[in-house]
């Protein structure tokens, strides 16, 4: 499997694989709600747990309040019941006694009262938990007129806490207070004895507070650390015992809950309780006017937290389980989606490596089936295209090699042609050397005196060998031009000097035929032009000698002029002229006007072809105008600046290479 190493080489990011991304996405989308729901649940649970605790505390406080109220009502009821048997008038009769009372009278009242409360120094009612352990009657001045404990008679209660309220209200409960004389917590329940709408006396009973403690110490609904207790507004005394040891009743305590309750507020709070060190609690505090005390119902925050923690752990467990299951499902789904697609990668690699026979067979999903069909179609087409291409390449290769062979053959033919011309030139020159050499030696008289006739014939041999040599040179020239082996130099040429040299060279020839040789130089002709002086000489000599050759009488005129970046060499004659039909081919190789004129005037017919080829290579041209019987005008034009095709002749190495090839 070629895909294996590749897959191992790029494990860089799970996110970059289809399967990895699908898995991550699905898992993320399944975990996210679980986390959110879990988080919300936790927050809700926290507040629910708290509010449940608060509700519970409030319920407990409410219950305690009701129990206290019931207890107090019970106390009043018991007292009322206890005194209901008394004839109020009789009681009042005693009541009206002056401070100096009579024993007899006193004894009578006592007997009467005793009858009521005889053997009942403690009046109890177990149902309501009321216990009176002392009962007495006092008049408006506070003097006790009758008592369950007869010793008390004659004593005054005017200074007691409850006295003022008891003589002003029909019924009164004195909230718990610390009786310094008795050294304990004390409560009194009083009832006024009214005659004619006026309070005449008060009957009072000392209420035992044990029941109050019992009520407060009831632990129903308070859990492990919950408690209810009363704190008196009187010196912040703890009225009912703490559930913890070491916190005595009647000692001063102060907490936030106590302060708030003393400010007549009912409510809930999170604060530190009275313990040392303080324990943070959730507290419900209430003001109890009957008891003149704060009622507190508290539970430690730690306990609530423990409750919350338990539910939280349960919630988190459920969330974690959900996440696990969701991730598992996400993983499986991602795998099942990515697997059919993942099949393509190794197949594509195999196809890329040239195994075009592979096809995909995955049909797990409709979309993947379409993709797989498309993939297979693509592979089919690729296969077909590659086969076509291979065929084409073979064809092209065949064509190319044919072309290459043809090119090689053409190059070989050119080479052979050059070689042939070169060899021919060499082979023609060798005998020509002997002919012209010996002819020259004889003509010079180097081999002794010769007679007139022999001299004449030797001159004919000599001129013919010169002609033959010129022909060979022309053929060589033309071959070089065709092979592109002509090197043109670019040098400054003084045209006026060139013109006079041409005149010197050719005016003799013209004079021999009785022709006038005229040179016209335009004043506008530049002093210097750039070009190859040898080649320009060659062209000029060719045109001038042609003009002389084809003119029997009249003149040959050479004109030099310049026009628009070019300079012109014009050779006009008064010769036989050229027929119009011949103007088209006069510059072709081996063509003079006709075969007869070739024979009549001599020359190979190569000169003009060479001259025009050279002129064109220099960026110029040669044109001709002619009128039969009047003469011809040949005009050669050249750029004043050097031809761009020139190469310096001084490149000896290049020359050597060229020569080596020949």
């Amino acid at each position, binding site marked *: 499997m070629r895909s294996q190493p590749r897959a191992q080489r790029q494990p860089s990011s799970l996110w970059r694989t289809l399967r990895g991304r699908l898995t991550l996405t699905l898992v993320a989308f399944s975990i996210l709600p679980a986390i959110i729901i879990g988080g919300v649940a936790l927050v809700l649970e926290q507040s629910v747990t708290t509010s449940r605790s608060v509700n519970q505390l409030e319920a407990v406080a409410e219950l305690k309040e009701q129990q206290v109220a019931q207890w107090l009502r019970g106390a009043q009821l018991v007292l009322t019941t206890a005194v209901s048997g008394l004839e109020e008038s009789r009681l009042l009769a005693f009541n009206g006694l002056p401070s100096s009372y009579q024993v007899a009278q006193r004894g009578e009242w006592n007997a009467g009262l005793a009858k009521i409360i005889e053997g009942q120094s403690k009046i109890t009612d177990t149902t309501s938990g009321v216990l009176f352990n002392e009962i007495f009657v006092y008049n408006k001045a506070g003097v006790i007129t009758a008592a369950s404990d007869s010793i008390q008679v004659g004593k005054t209660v005017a200074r007691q806490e409850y006295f003022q309220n008891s003589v002003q209200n029909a019924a009164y409960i004195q909230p718990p207070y610390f009786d310094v004389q008795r050294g304990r917590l004390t409560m009194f329940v009083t009832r006024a004895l009214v005659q004619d709408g006026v309070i005449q006396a008060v009957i009072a009973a000392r209420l035992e507070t044990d029941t109050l403690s019992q009520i407060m110490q009831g632990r129903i609904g308070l859990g492990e650390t919950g408690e209810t207790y009363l704190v008196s507004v009187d010196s912040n005394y703890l009225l009912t015992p703490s559930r913890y040891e070491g916190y005595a009743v009647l000692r001063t305590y102060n907490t936030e809950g106590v302060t708030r309750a003393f400010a007549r507020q009912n409510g809930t709070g999170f604060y530190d309780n009275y313990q040392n060190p303080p324990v943070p609690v959730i507290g419900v505090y209430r003001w109890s006017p009957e008891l003149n005390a704060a009622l507190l119902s508290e539970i430690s925050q730690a306990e609530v937290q423990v409750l919350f923690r338990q539910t939280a752990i349960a919630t988190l467990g459920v969330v974690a389980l959900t996440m696990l299951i969701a991730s598992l499902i996400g993983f499986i789904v991602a795998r099942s989606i990515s697997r059919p697609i993942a099949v393509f990668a190794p197949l594509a690699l195999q196809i890329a490596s040239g195994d075009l026979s592979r096809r995909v067979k995955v049909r797990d999903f409709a979309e993947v089936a379409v993709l797989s069909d498309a993939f297979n179609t693509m592979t089919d087409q690729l296969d077909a295209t590659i086969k076509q291409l291979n065929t084409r390449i073979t064809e092209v290769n065949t064509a190319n090699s044919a072309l290459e062979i043809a090119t090689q053959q053409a190059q070989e033919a050119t080479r052979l042609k050059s070689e042939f011309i070169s060899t021919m030139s060499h082979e023609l020159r060798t005998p020509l050397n002997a002919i012209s*050499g010996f002819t*020259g030696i004889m003509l*010079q008289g180097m081999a002794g005196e010769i007679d007139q006739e022999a001299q004449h014939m030797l001159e004919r041999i000599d001129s013919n060998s010169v002609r033959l040599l010129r022909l060979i040179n022309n053929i060589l020239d033309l071959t070089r031009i065709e092979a592109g082996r002509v*090197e043109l130099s670019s040098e400054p040429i003084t045209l006026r000097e060139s013109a006079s040299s041409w005149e010197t060279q050719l005016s003799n020839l013209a004079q021999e035929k009785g022709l006038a040789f005229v040179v016209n130089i335009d004043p506008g002709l530049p002093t210097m032009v750039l070009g190859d002086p040898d080649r320009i000489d060659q062209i000029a000599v060719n045109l001038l000698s042609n003009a002389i050759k084809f003119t029997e009488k009249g003149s040959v005129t050479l004109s030099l002029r310049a026009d628009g970046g070019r300079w012109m060499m014009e050779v006009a004659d008064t010769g036989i002229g050229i027929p119009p039909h011949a103007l088209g081919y006069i510059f072709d190789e081996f063509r003079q006007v006709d075969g007869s004129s070739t024979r009549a005037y001599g020359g190979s017919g190569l000169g003009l072809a060479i001259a025009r080829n050279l002129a064109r290579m220099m960026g110029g041209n040669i044109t001709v105008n002619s009128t039969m019987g009047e003469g011809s005008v040949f005009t050669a034009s050249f750029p004043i600046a050097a031809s761009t095709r020139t190469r310096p002749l001084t490149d000896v190495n290049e*020359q050597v290479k060229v*020569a080596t090839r020949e």
Partner: protein
Amino acid sequence: MNKPPPIPRNTLENWTILVIDDENDGVEVASRILRFYGAQVHTATNGREALALVSTHKFRLIISDLSMPIMDGWQFIEVIKKNRATTDTPVIALTAHAMPGDRERAMAAGFYNHLTKPLTPATFMSDLLRLLITLPDFEMPNNNKSSSETK
């Protein structure tokens, strides 16, 4: 052309010249012209023969063809240039090869210069003289007309 060249007959009087050419006609044309102007001419038909002569004679000038059997002009000039005794002897190539670059190739190989066949007495001597006057030991003889006329 039919006028005799104005070159004195004694131009090459003190010259010992070696002419090398595998063509007898070529050798004869060249040596006849050179002798006409007073030179001592030795001939050889290839480079090896020429080397044998060079080892026994002192030549002031050698004129050599290029294409020859046994040892051609290129091999010959190589030996001449390597040999300290002959390296200063001017060797002129005389060849029927007239293709472009032939002159440069010859001069690069060590030839003093290059002349093209065919040769005629007029052109050969004037061309040769143009080359010879550039040699340091060449002295133009007095234009002693009498010597040429008397013969």
